[in-house]
């Protein structure tokens, strides 16, 4: 079962209201490392340091400033600024609906499951799921949760609604800014490439991928903790495919895949 309720709100658009509870949808469990001082293995902490005096400053002595000019700040309550609607409204306000496919993956951030706040809203909830599902639409919305404003998308998956937070456009670097060179690729190369990819295509089954590394890492730690010697292995570095050999390599790949 998903995590407990973390927040309650109401999906609102037009004169429609669907009260919902947010649940965490993802939980990460990973081997935790800490950062140590090399010479004596003292565990280090992240600290806010005064850049002039190089001394730590405790949280109660910290304030937030918005830099209006180099070295000049307007003192602000960051939470107050980040909150575009009052938190008390509890409204997940849908501003518009867009085709789900238009939301580029790079914009998607966290996902929450939405549960109807009460069985009384079951049919309304089901209707919204059904409508979004049938139309392949997502509702672009904003809301304020824990004193921060979020941009997000309400989407349907199976029988439930999900709420994804979206990154703001000024947080996502555009591919155009990478200034990639336009390099001509022949139709023949593209055709063979497509055929190769078709050959190598499988259904999306993420459950078949396990984090094997985690186990091996644990083994390495155990070994080292017992004082045994750890054999260092060099990473494998592949020889890049030469530009003028690309067609040849693609053809060989295709033969291998077939």
């Amino acid at each position: 079962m998903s995590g407990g309720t973390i927040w309650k709100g109401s999906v609102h658009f037009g004169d429609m209201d669907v009260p919902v509870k947010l649940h965490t949808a993802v939980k990460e469990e990973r081997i935790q490392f800490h950062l140590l001082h090399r010479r004596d293995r003292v565990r280090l902490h992240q600290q806010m340091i005064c850049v002039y005096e190089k001394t730590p400053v405790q949280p109660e002595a910290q304030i937030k400033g918005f830099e209006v000019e180099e070295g000049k700040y307007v003192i602000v309550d960051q939470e107050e600024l980040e909150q575009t609607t009052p938190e008390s409204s509890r409204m997940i306000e849908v501003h518009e609906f867009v085709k789900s496919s238009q939301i580029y993956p790079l914009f998607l951030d966290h996902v929450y499951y939405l549960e109807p706040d009460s069985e009384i809203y079951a049919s309304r909830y089901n209707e919204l799921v059904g409508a979004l599902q049938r139309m392949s639409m997502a509702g672009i919305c904003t809301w304020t949760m824990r004193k921060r404003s979020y941009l997000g998308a309400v989407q349907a998956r199976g029988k439930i609604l999900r709420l994804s937070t979206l990154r703001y456009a000024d947080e996502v670097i555009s591919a155009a800014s990478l200034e990639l060179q336009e390099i001509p690729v022949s139709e023949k190369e593209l055709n063979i490439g497509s055929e190769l990819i078709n050959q190598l295509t499988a259904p999306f089954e993420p459950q078949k991928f396990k984090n094997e590394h985690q186990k091996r890492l644990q083994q390495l730690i155990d070994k080292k903790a017992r004082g045994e010697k750890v054999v260092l292995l060099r990473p494998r570095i592949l020889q890049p495919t030469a530009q003028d050999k690309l067609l040849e390599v693609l053809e060989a790949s295709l033969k291998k895949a077939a």
Partner: protein
Amino acid sequence: MSRKVIEIAGRRLALSNLEKDLYPSWGFTKAHVLDYYRRIAAFMLPHLKDRALTLKRYPDGVGKAFFFVKRCPDYHPVWAKTAEVRRGSSKMMTVCLANNLETLLWVENLASLELHVPLSRTGSPETPDAMVFDLDPGEQATILDCAIVALILRILLTRLRLASYPKTSGQKGLHVYVPLNYREATFEDTKIFSKTVAVIMQKNYPDLVTAKMAKEQRTGKVFINWSQNDASKTMICVYSLRAREKPFVSFPLEWKELERLVRQGKPESLQVMYSEAVSRVEESGDLFRQVLIKKQKLPHL
């Protein structure tokens, strides 16, 4: 959105948003900004070369939000030259070096109206190649007061056998540069020297000069900001545009010209606009060239 792809030295650069009005009261668009930097480049690039660039970006034009960018964006073109510099006591940071026209135009395509550079080059970050007196007028003081202080400063420096070169800040102040260009120069020396000069100036001209940072002490006076002589500080690069209402440039002046302008007594006449900047360098070359080559040592230290 207009886009235009240009090619310089075989490198392709996509320019975007060219019609964006970056100086709205002047109708000065991004295309104008790019054109200005293209035309001034031959004179400006030697002053930018190998210096860790700080961009002051105005994506929505002057008067709107701006951002200081010191870290070279990860998405920089592969051909743009970068350098690793130490930031603070520990962290390393990648910075952009505007060593050629294409990089200059790339950063300008990011609407980096102002280009700020340190007084040292990335290869020798602790070695200033010039000492600077940043003359900043407090409230009720003007660029003319700065010019008067600059002229006194010049006499002092000349008597110490140091040649100096003034430029406008493009805002309200003036910058007086003393070229050093010798390997043993340190910021410690330039700081102590400039500070001593500032303090002595303040002592002798208390109504005109202050060496103190505090705002309330600056009213009606010229603040000689000696603390710019520091590895962590940057100055507006000569020939950079400034993000003011009008497209003024930080531009080098001759001492004689400065004397004449002080006699005329019109603050506006000290400002150099982009168009004048281009025609002046084309006619008389780079007045700031000596700052890059003249070797001088600070005496009495």
